[in-house]
């Protein structure tokens, strides 16, 4: 599964200097993960849990790489301690490209339960948050990547189903 928007996102990551990416899959992210595997400019390491992925990213950063984590919003529930005590405490720049499940068009009721908590949790943690609803919102991605490096913080890029599909 590959498509224009996934190619654009991975292209922007590469352009933005990202060279190390960890992922835990989500149906919505299948295309972008596919594109990552095709790229020889990005070291892609699938991880088993998102906090483990953030540990890999922290190590890679200290080794001179510019990491990014790709995950589902439900994973915020398992990464809060890691975000606070590793990524924020040691001031590690980490863009988090997050599939935002539980928004309009969501077929699975349970996904709505974590969707409700996603933005409040990010706000509580003081994480700069950006929300892509439509395809054209991708225009902001290069600037978000620069911003993340500039402030040495984790940043969240929430991506709706409509962003990936292009339609509701």
């Amino acid at each position: 599964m590959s498509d224009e928007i996934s190619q654009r996102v991975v292209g922007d990551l590469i352009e933005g200097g990202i060279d190390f990416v960890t992922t835990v899959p989500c149906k919505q992210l299948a295309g972008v993960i596919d594109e990552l595997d095709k790229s020889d400019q990005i070291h892609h390491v699938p991880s088993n849990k998102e906090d483990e992925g953030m540990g890999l990213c922290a190590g890679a950063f200290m080794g001179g790489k510019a990491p990014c984590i790709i995950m589902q919003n439900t994973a915020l529930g398992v990464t809060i301690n890691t975000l606070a005590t590793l990524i924020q405490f040691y001031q590690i720049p980490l863009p988090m490209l997050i599939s935002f499940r539980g928004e309009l068009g969501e077929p699975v009721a349970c996904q709505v339960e974590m969707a409700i908590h996603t933005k409040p949790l990010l706000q509580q943690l003081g994480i700069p948050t950006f929300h892509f609803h439509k395809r054209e919102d991708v225009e902001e991605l290069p600037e978000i990547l620069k911003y993340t490096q500039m402030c040495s913080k984790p940043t969240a890029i929430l991506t709706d189903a409509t962003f990936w599909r292009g339609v509701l």
Partner: protein
Amino acid sequence: MNRSEVFKSIVPVITDELVICNIGLPSQELHMLDDQPTNFYMLGTMGLCSSIGLGLAMAQREKVVAIDGDGSILTNFGSLPTIANNVVDNFVLLIIDNGSYGSTGDQPTYTGKKTSLAKVAEACGCDNVIECKAEETADVLKAALGSDKMTIIVCKCESGNIPVPNITIPPVVIRDRFMTEVEKRNR
């Protein structure tokens, strides 16, 4: 031999190596015995020592020793398959297995009972898994560093702690002096 005695015995082996050290007493013991800019002390985040170590080893060419514990590995079991399937020969994972959660009052872990971390690591697909006695750790670690093969060492030692001071170096300073050292060695 308990964990702090193991640390004492391995200091000459790791003093000039890049070390990622587990949260709590292990970091405090290493900091007290041999504080070096090449030591990255985890001040929080239980479980991620092996992941940070692997990420660092994948990102650059210098050797990396992650000094983890049994409780921490049990918390982040998902790390072992990732390590097994992403082999980097500049990575040594040393698990100091005292069969207890030392930093929280020596509550027993399951590795002091029926669970074998060496067998788990092997089942996850890790090559070069060595279980050793506490007294052998320094020699085994030295050999692993000289082998240029990714190695997982499970050091079986006794539980028990000594009083150690807290680490008061700010986290950003720990991270910055460590990264400066990594960068210098990769030039």
